[in-house]
């Protein structure tokens, strides 16, 4: 299994280095407009938050997979894990937040030793939509995880899972050898307890990320293809497919540079820029909490260590009113969220 950029001492494990790359070259010489200048053209600068709707909490960067495109640089060698103390601080916020969606992510959030306790406690808050982002293979990684589908069902968790393609070859190339077969088995286990089945209120959505240096196609067309192929080949059902653009940071940035696709990819993102997508970009309605409790405008800013531009920096000092009064930190990778129909953790936005 590959190692994370951090474990490999890769140049890009340094977030400052990533930001330098994204500010130099085609953006420094004016060939492409910086994201800030682009949104100035439509008077959308500075980007400001709207009503908070989604609280996204990262329970740790540890993962049983090392996906080639991972913006978290997650993997088995990452030891950053949320402590119970920080979890308790998050629970205090979950009980009082105005957000209607709680979104747990990682790494593989299930690998946090206190994951189940945290889900049980968080479920008591009665948040309308309680999402766990599961990579699927974790359900088959070890016997202790086999009952996760039943656990999710018990707490009415909305499962959102990654699945880059309905074919083995494409999936394994992006996510690792054997991932496709384990994911199929995990999806069947989720279906067995009612997830994604017609007439069931247990929601199972899939996330599609392109497996290479290209943008996602039409979300609805992809969803139809996924539904047909997974049903015909494996009798698997699911609710919706979210098509998410790979943002040029972390491992995906490393891949783009190594494969000499970086400039073409940035041109494609800028060419597909859609001002309408800026209106609903996820940082305007989401707050991201890192494993150590710090607050960010989005998951991507978290991975680049760009803490929120507010007096309130940590979940322990949470104040929703103060947090709403801020300018969102933007950079060239934000073009990934505004290309075409837009992209967010909930799929298209425009």
């Amino acid at each position, binding site marked *: 299994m590959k190692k994370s950029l951090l474990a490999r001492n890769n140049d890009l494990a340094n977030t400052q280095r990533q930001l330098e790359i994204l500010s130099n070259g085609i953006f420094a010489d004016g060939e492409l407009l910086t994201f800030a200048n682009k949104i100035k053209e439509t008077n959308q600068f500075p980007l400001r938050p709207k009503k908070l709707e989604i609280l996204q909490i990262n329970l740790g960067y540890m993962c049983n997979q090392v996906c080639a495109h991972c913006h978290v640089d997650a993997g088995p060698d990452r030891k950053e894990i949320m402590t119970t103390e920080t979890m308790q601080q998050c629970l205090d916020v979950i009980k009082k937040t105005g957000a209607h969606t709680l979104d747990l992510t990682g790494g593989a959030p299930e690998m946090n030793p206190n994951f189940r306790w945290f889900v049980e406690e968080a479920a008591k808050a009665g948040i309308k939509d309680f999402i766990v982002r599961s990579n699927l293979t974790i359900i088959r990684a070890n016997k202790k995880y086999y009952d996760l589908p039943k656990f999710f069902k018990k707490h009415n968790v909305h499962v959102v899972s990654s699945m880059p393609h*309905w074919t083995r070859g494409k999936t394994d190339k992006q996510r690792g050898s054997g991932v496709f077969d384990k994911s199929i088995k995990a999806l069947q286990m989720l279906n067995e307890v009612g997830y994604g089945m017609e007439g069931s209120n247990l929601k199972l959505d899939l996330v599609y990320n392109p497996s290479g240096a290209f943008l996602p196609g039409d979300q609805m067309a992809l969803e139809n293809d996924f539904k047909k192929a997974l049903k015909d080949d494996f009798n698997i059902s699911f609710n919706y497919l979210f098509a998410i653009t790979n943002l040029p940071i972390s491992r995906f940035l490393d891949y783009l540079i190594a494969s000499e696709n970086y400039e073409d990819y940035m041109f494609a993102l800028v060419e597909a820029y859609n001002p309408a997508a800026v209106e609903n970009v996820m940082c305007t309605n989401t707050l991201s909490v890192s494993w150590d409790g710090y607050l960010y405008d989005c998951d991507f800013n978290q991975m680049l260590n760009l803490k929120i531009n507010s007096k309130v920096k940590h979940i322990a000092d949470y104040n929703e009113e103060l947090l709403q009064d801020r300018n969102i930190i933007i950079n060239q990778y934000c073009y990934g969220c505004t290309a075409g129909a837009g992209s967010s953790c909930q799929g298209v936005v425009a």
Partner: protein
Amino acid sequence: MSKTYYDPADLRKFGKITEWNEELGNKFFDYYGKVFEEGALTAREKSLIALAVAHTEQCPYCIDAYTKDGLQRGITKEQMMEAIHVGAAIKSGATLVHGVQMMNKVNKLEM
């Protein structure tokens, strides 16, 4: 001057052809966009046709563009290769079918 006849970066400049004739350029791009919309054929089917024709026309820009377009639509490499074989079969068939003309001519000229 560029060192080669084809520069992959030139594909990004395709839209600039309107700068030297705005009316005709815009008409072309309007037509082009309309052709590729969902219709009696799906956009996916049209993408595969475009890929096959890109090969028979041997247009490197079109091959780059419709390979990427196919990937974006979730089209597999096996499907893309089959589409190219359709183009190749028609191209070679179109060559061979002219053999009948040759045969006709030979039959007419020979005693």
